């Protein structure tokens, strides 16, 4: 006796609940492992799913076991070639038995437990409790984009929107209800009348019939006028209602000082910051554009390769970059359609007097139209200690300190491992709470 059941179409992922529990259990370690791999990996690999290792201890499943190194016991192994009874074999170093029994299948005793995260899981853990400020405000509350959507039918409207089918249906129903005489019925009577009228010498009978037909015809005509074929009551129009749609596109402006004072190290730090921001935006928006603007004493839009890897000499005027950014934004990224983010990286030096110009530009023109402006100042590792006081710093830093807009944030980094905490700080939920 047997029967076959095809289970292939059953939902898979039955163990999802267990996976979630496992993640919950090892959450701290998994997040740490993800953060660690962020620092070590090159940024382009960031989005990939990947293998991570967490300390086995956090998810150990301890059992009472016998100590493998203690006591006396015997193992039987296959494949004897030259051993005779009484031979002595030196134990391998570290005392690890080679018998399969010692390796427990639960993976305890190993230092690390490795497994694979899917891309989604990886990014979710990375972005956990991060949120972009004002995001909800723009994309949901201040929905500036509208789209016309069908919204049923109405009794008023423009003739172009006439819904013929609904109109005719209504008319048909009304005609049936009001018993409007059909054209066929009227025509029959008319024909009969015509035939009667053609008789030269009608009999009394025929005359009476003619009269009756005439009367009937008049009644029908009256009725037809009273219940018209199409009545204004029947007419229906397609209705359209404007529906707000959240803006689902974002543009990210990367502004960077590429003058001589910015070395490979500084650029690398900036790059990592930009890429994290990019990833984050990509996660939140359907479409994300990136514009790279580099500047020395003048600014220009460049491609990514040039942005990060070509060098230029010259002075430093930060405001030029802000102006170029405004220009591009006006040309290509209207605020109706785009959420605008700006990330600026610099070593903090600018031509004297320019910092004030930047602050003015930001306060008066730039900040009102964008979602977020992040300024990161990249320091030498040695400088980091000197500038632990937020009020001390280079000219630009001090000038930016005067900006009170919640959409503006500034911070300092000196080392790759600073980036992630900084990133979190910039976009943390708490920040948003303050801003609101």
């Amino acid at each position: 006796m047997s029967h076959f059941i095809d289970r292939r179409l059953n939902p898979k992922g039955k163990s999802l609940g267990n996976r979630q529990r496992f993640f919950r259990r090892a959450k701290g370690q998994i997040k740490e492992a993800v953060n660690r791999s962020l620092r070590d990996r090159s940024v382009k690999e960031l989005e990939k799913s990947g293998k991570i290792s967490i300390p086995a201890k956090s998810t150990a499943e301890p059992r009472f076991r016998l100590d493998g190194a203690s006591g006396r016991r015997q193992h039987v192994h296959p494949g004897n070639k030259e051993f005779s009874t009484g031979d002595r074999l030196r134990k391998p170093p570290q005392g690890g038995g080679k018998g399969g029994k010692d390796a427990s299948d639960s993976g305890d005793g190993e230092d690390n437990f490795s497994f694979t995260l899917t891309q989604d899981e990886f990014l979710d853990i990375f972005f956990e409790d991060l949120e972009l400020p004002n995001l909800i405000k723009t994309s949901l509350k201040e929905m500036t984009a509208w789209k016309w959507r069908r919204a049923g039918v109405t009794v008023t409207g423009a003739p172009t929107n006439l819904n013929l089918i609904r109109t005719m249906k209504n008319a048909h129903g009304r005609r049936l209800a009001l018993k409007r005489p059909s054209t066929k019925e009227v025509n029959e009577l008319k024909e009969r009348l015509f035939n009667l009228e053609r008789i030269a010498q009608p009999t009394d009978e025929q005359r009476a019939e003619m009269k009756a037909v005439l009367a009937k015809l008049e009644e029908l005509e009256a009725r037809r006028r009273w219940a018209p074929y199409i009545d204004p009551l029947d007419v229906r129009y397609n209705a359209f209602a404007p529906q707000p749609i959240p803006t689902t596109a974002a543009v990210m402006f990367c502004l960077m000082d590429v003058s001589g004072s910015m070395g490979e190290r500084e650029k690398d730090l900036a790059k990592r910051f930009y890429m994290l921001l990019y990833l984050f935006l990509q996660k939140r928006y359907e479409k994300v554009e990136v514009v790279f603007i580099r500047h020395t004493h003048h600014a220009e839009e460049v491609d990514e390769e040039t942005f990060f890897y070509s060098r230029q000499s010259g002075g430093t005027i930060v405001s030029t970059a802000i102006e170029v950014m405004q220009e591009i934004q006006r040309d290509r990224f209207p605020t109706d359609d785009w959420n605008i983010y700006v990330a600026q990286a610099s070593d903090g030096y600018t031509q004297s007097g320019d910092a004030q110009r930047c602050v003015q530009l930001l306060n008066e023109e730039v900040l009102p139209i964008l979602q977020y402006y992040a300024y990161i100042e990249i320091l030498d590792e040695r400088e980091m200690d000197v500038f632990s006081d937020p009020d001390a710093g280079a000219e630009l830093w001090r000038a930016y300190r005067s900006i009170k807009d919640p959409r503006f944030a500034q911070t300092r980094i000196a080392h790759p491992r600073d980036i992630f905490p900084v990133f979190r700080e910039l976009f943390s939920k708490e920040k948003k709470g303050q801003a609101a």
Partner: protein
Amino acid sequence: MSATPKSDNLLFSEAAWTFADLQRTFDAIEDIGLNDLGLDVYKNQIEIITSEQMLDAYSSHGMPLMYRHWSFGKAFARDSMNYQKGYTGLAYEIVINSDPCISYLMEENSMTMQALVMAHACMGHNHFFKNNYLFQQWTDASSILTYLDFAKKYIARCEDEYGWEEVEQTLDAAHALQDQGVFRYNRPPKLSQTEMRAKVEARLEHERENFNDLWRTLPQREEDEEAAEARLGEVRNIKLPEENLLYFIEKASPSLRPWQRELIRIVRNVSQYFYPQKQTKVMNEGCATFVHHYIMNELHRRGQISDGSILEFLHSHSSVVFQPEFDDPRYSGINPYALGFAMMEDIVRIVTDPTDEDREWFPAMAGHGDWRGELKNAWANFRDESFIQQYLSPKVIRDFGFFALGDDGRKPYYRVEAIHDEMGYRDVRNALSTMYDLGMHEPNLQVVGADLSGDRTLKIRHTVYKDRILDRRTQDAVMGHLKFLWGYDVELEQDKAEA
């Protein structure tokens, strides 16, 4: 051997399978299994699943349903990575000791593999589950799925009611003690074996019948007096020492709430359900492998599968029973398939075509001719340890080149204590048999005292055998779990065995 099989007799001719192929082939396999080998099986339920579903099943002990716990998620994470990275393949099948006997077949298998798997699982394992005394005695095939369904829902309810943290903590603690949650030799006191089975069955029956009641009234927050009285009555009946730690804690812990006791019972029951499988790996796989080997060859002899199929089968079969030698990098212990299959083939040889050596070693069995009866007797009445002790012949020892290594923790070397020669056969056999005796390498822990009216200290004793002490690295963690369940102090003592 007959000549080339007639092609119109073939059950299938292509690698791709259809349900009609499966059914036709199953019928032919069943015919050989029941009428030729004389197997006695539960009704079969064969389910076709995808590789992803197979991975799902892996992580929950191969059961189609299981309660939720993070450790299963961990197992799944490991298995799926190993599979995706190609470190391991997937089993061709999973079979569940239940009535009806459920076998999972992977859709990726070729038709020949499906035939192999059906012979292996639906005939071999199925017969073993139904007939081996350990399974008969300790597992209830007909109700396991119902019970797991109850367990899963019950634990989900508890998570809702008491929060996942508490449930997880209790399950973690119970899992840490699950190896100590089985009855090995002692029955619960004052009950004969049959009485106890009747009781177990009655309770399961009760649970089934009152399923909806359970739903409505459970999980209980506090224990009412009547239930507490009944429970304490059971506790008074427990004669110490008690080897089933979880059982004792479930009944006697002063601090657990009723739903926690139920969770412990669930873990304990699942552990007990799998205990026979741990003791019969060699026999169970040997039985299934022997059966599939016989059936596939018989199908070929009858001209029901093609030469190509039998070659594909042999290729797969020989990798299943491949035993790397100890100095091979692939070596990871004795392959239960290889040992079991070799011993069962050897039994057939001894029964039908014995040598003088066999007559000396197995006077009762050698040459009596009824190998089917002999195997069925072995499958029914032995576990790995006793099976090896009874049936391992010098020839198999020679074929494998078995040798016994003595390992004394205090000495820097191993000593070769016996090899495959006249003097060594019995020692090798004893040593191998001992290796499969779970009692020898699982620590022997017992509850020896519980001061229920005084300071409520629980006393546990580890009886040390051959100087083997508990592993310190895990001992403290498990003791922590034990204390959590008990709620009061727990003392552990390590004592030398008197003998």
